[in-house]
């Protein structure tokens, strides 16, 4: 029976290795050469950077988060926001679709009467417990009013207590959408 001669299979089956591979020493030296080459290359570029030269070359490929970030894709699901009507009130009509679909059960809405009978219903409170949220985006999919979106590109909302992880209607309304530019490009954060 012939077996595929790829590296993983050879590693799993010592019989498939050649004599020199089985002694390990040459292979280790080969690996050290690769690592050391990158080390000295990056060291050299960083030294040149200090001297103000070669600024267009990156010292290392690593993204230096949080000093640097990549441009996010428009389909990224980030922190929620509630959209607003022209007068600044929430578009949400408290239909409870998002609360119903939410697999983590992290949305809590209380409905109340809207003074305008043509709108009829509005949320008295709208809380999202981000400590429970799984960022599946179902709430955005299901919303019949385009009242909730996940396009803020805010990912750092960690807090010191569980209570602070619950975002109420005012915090959700104050979130703004993030313009998408340069998807995947590394940007310095000012």
């Amino acid at each position: 029976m012939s077996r595929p001669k790829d590296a993983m299979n050879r590693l799993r089956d010592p019989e498939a290795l050649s004599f020199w591979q089985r002694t390990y020493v040459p292979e280790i030296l080969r690996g050290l050469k690769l690592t050391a080459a990158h080390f000295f290359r990056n060291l050299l570029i960083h030294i040149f950077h200090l001297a103000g030269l070669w600024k267009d070359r990156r010292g290392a490929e690593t993204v230096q988060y949080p000093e640097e970030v990549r441009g996010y894709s428009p389909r990224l699901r980030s922190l929620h926001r509630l959209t607003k009507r022209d007068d600044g009130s929430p578009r949400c009509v408290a239909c409870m679709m998002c609360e119903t679909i939410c697999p983590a059960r992290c949305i809590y809405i209380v409905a109340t009467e809207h003074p305008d009978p043509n709108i009829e219903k509005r949320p008295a409170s709208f809380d999202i417990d981000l400590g429970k949220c799984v960022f599946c985006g179902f709430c955005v999919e299901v919303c019949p009013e385009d009242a909730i979106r996940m396009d803020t590109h805010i990912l750092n909302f960690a807090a010191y207590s569980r209570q602070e992880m619950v975002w109420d209607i005012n915090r959700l309304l104050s979130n703004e959408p993030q313009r998408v530019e340069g998807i995947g490009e590394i940007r310095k954060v000012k």
Partner: protein
Amino acid sequence: MPTLTIDGQQVTVSKGATIMQAAEALGIYIPRYCYHPGLRVAGSCRMCLVEIEKAPKLDIACYRQAAEGMVVHTTTEPVKLARQSILEFLLSNHPLDCPVCDQSGECDLQNFYMEFGLYQSRFLENKIKRRKAFPIGRHVMLDNERCILCSRCVRFCEEVSRSHELGIVNRGDRSEIALREGSQLDNEYSGNVIDICPVGALTEREFRFQCRVWYLNRAASVCPGCSRGCNIELHYNVNRPHQSGGKRVLRLKPRFNAEVNKWWMCDEGRYGFEFIDAPSRLQDFEIRTAQRTVVASREQAVQTLSDWIGDSIDRHGSQSLGIFLSPKLSNEDLYGIGKFARHVGIDCLDFRNPSERPGYQDDFLIQADKNPNTRGCLELGLYRRSEDSGGWMAGEIQRGKVRVLIVFLQDLALAPEFQQVLGRLERLVFVGSNRNGTAEIASLVVPSATYAEKDGSFTNFEGRAQRFERAVVPLGSAVAEADLVASVAVSFGMQREEFERERLLSDLRREYPFFDQEALNPPELEWVYQTPIGQERL
């Protein structure tokens, strides 16, 4: 007795029966809007069109009488196309504001459209604007845009409540439901128009935006509002407590019973459930001395009560104990209490509050006796036959004969006879669900479960015993009355098993042949509404 064939099944119906009734007998469901079994046939919605062989065109099942040899089809292509076209027509001026509509989830327009609708809309015109969301009575909100003019509510007000408040005004696509000039929809049965409205045109003001209907669970129950004992469904929300501000029972709906209430119930009963989650609910056992009131555990309270009863029997005999029952207690609770009273030899029992006056009644459902189980108390013989009211017990207290009185639910402090003498008692024990004047002065207060929080049965004024099932757990430390008595009875040599719910009922049926009724068998629940709601817990 014509025999006809519907969808390949033969059925024989009585003369004059309609195709709709024949299909119902076969268990075939024909969609309908204007047809309601409790109202006259209007034939206006055309949703129930069926194909009858040898007939020139489709005919409405709700009006066409069954005839010998008739062959009816309800699922053929012409029928489906007719339903689709009618739905398209009904939606042409329907606002489709399902997100804000309280009916969504139990709306026949939604349900039938999901099943038979035309999914690619062809509608390009502008919809007619009408008045939205305005109250037309104490309990009912009207939205004219959502109305499909089935006229069920109009016929209800003409035929059932006979109050004639509603009508359809204007012509063609300008037609709409309107109140008779200068009137309001506030008859005693106005809530029923909300139930029979197939869409969200008539919604309930009390229930409005409290909870989406798919979060509701339901339990079969019996209305405790009067001695009629209307069959009801209890709709409660325990899955999303934040939506309704912690209130659990959110609405009552009538449950069909041909002998008692048919499809209807009165507003008094419908909105008489507030006490279940009211702030006045008793939630803790309280022991009160002259100086202060302390919250006790269930064990402490039961021990205290047992000690008082035992002590009083030891010192003055069982004649020194009195029990004031309530016709709001279930048959099982009454029987359990009666059993214990017999065991320890208490014969000073009554349930008739002398301060209670007969209330409003009419010739339809509402009874003057506002207690659900007066007949049960009478059949169990838990009163002194020689007296016409419970006032005699005040005399017994006055003479110093009764020293310890246990009051169930009733507010004796309201009755002038008792006001004077309650202070003479050595011990006053109050067992009840809500705080009242008697609870304020009782030396021991026991919180008890309401009818929504326990299984049981009530006997209505005609002598029909009817079961109700538990919907929610008792609030706080509340206990069912029979369970409290069971805990006390154990100290007097009785077995706890004797007070189990099913055991109480079977003993009751054996001992009192009156209660051996079919209706007390474990219920098979038939839901009135076509739309199954809240069955799976979301």
